[in-house]
């Protein structure tokens, strides 16, 4: 079986997560949605600072995190110390599929066809039905906001709470949403609305876009 160079790079990146400590560090940094220092990452994962630094740098080498330097205190000038090394999620995607699969190319083509046919409304209706089916994944709990967050998390949206609303740190359809934002973000909204209605949730889903995140919020 052949694995081409690009897949090989992605495979190396993913392999770096084989270590459970490293995986915990990656999960923690990604979930913060901001720069994270070594001290903080070490404390959160219950390991020493030196070991955390080692694994964080391995994750940078693997292309999964990127590193920068930032002052973690407000103090500046002499005596404020050196800027600390901080980590955040690296841009770009890592995909490993065995055997090789390429759903992205086909999805991009289909999205173009929908726009050319003016089929946006039907696409949204289909997305809504897909969202309703997603409710079948719901864990058997009664606390609806928790159920909603669990389903969204399982789908890769990375939900988090902000000002009493659920926001989504990650857009699972990122490449498509960059290519055909109006179509794809509208379909994603319809999908989330379908999920809500099938869960009988009181929340409503709306678009409140900002750069770098999924544009759907739940209130």
């Amino acid at each position: 079986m052949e694995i081409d160079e690009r897949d090989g790079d992605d495979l190396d990146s993913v392999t770096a997560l084989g270590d459970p400590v490293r995986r915990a560090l990656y999960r923690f940094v990604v979930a913060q949605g901001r720069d994270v220092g070594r001290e903080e990452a070490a404390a959160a994962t219950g390991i020493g600072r030196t070991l955390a630094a080692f694994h964080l740098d391995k994750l940078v080498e693997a292309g999964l995190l990127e590193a920068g330097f930032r002052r973690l205190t407000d103090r500046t000038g002499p005596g404020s110390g050196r800027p600390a090394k901080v980590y955040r999620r690296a841009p770009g995607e890592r995909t490993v599929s065995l055997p090789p699969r390429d759903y992205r190319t086909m999805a991009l083509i289909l999205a173009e066809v929908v726009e050319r046919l003016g089929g946006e409304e039907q696409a949204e209706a289909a997305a809504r039905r897909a969202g309703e089916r997603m409710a079948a994944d719901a864990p058997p709990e009664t606390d609806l906001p928790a159920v909603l967050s669990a389903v969204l998390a399982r789908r890769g949206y990375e939900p988090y709470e902000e000002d009493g609303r659920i926001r989504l740190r990650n857009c699972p359809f990122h490449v498509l949403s960059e290519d055909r934002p109006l179509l794809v973000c509208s379909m994603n909204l319809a999908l989330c609305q379908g999920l809500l209605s099938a869960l009988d949730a009181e929340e409503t889903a709306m678009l409140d876009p900002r750069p770098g995140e999924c544009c759907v919020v739940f209130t």
Partner: protein
Amino acid sequence: MHLAQLNVAHLIAPLDTPQLADFVAALEPINAIADAAPGFVWRLKGGDQPTDTVRHDYGDHLLVNFSVWESREALWNFVYRSPHLPVLRRRREWFQRVAEPYTVMWWVPEGHTPSLEEGMDRLDLLRSQGPTPEAFTFHDFHEPATPDVA
């Protein structure tokens, strides 16, 4: 170089009709967001009132949006990653569906304020030649011909 964008839309009814009321109500907040957006440079205004739309000689019911931005990213983030997106989603309620391109972009030297005539020429160019470095779209984007010497 800065990025100019012209967008023309065919209204389904005059601006003072109930069908367009929600659109007119969105003009002031959305224009305010554009004016304050990172990388915003300029937009053609129809008058001193925030709801004034651009007056022109290119036909009745033709709504014109014309602006200049520092980069593709700046314009993209305003169009698709700001409260402009939910308004854009409702375009079918207010504007006719048109088969030909209705939005065009091109690079302008920094400090140059393009005229509406220039913009309409670029739109014609896009419609007749397809996307080129002189007239293009988000989807078929072209970087500036010469490197930006800051």
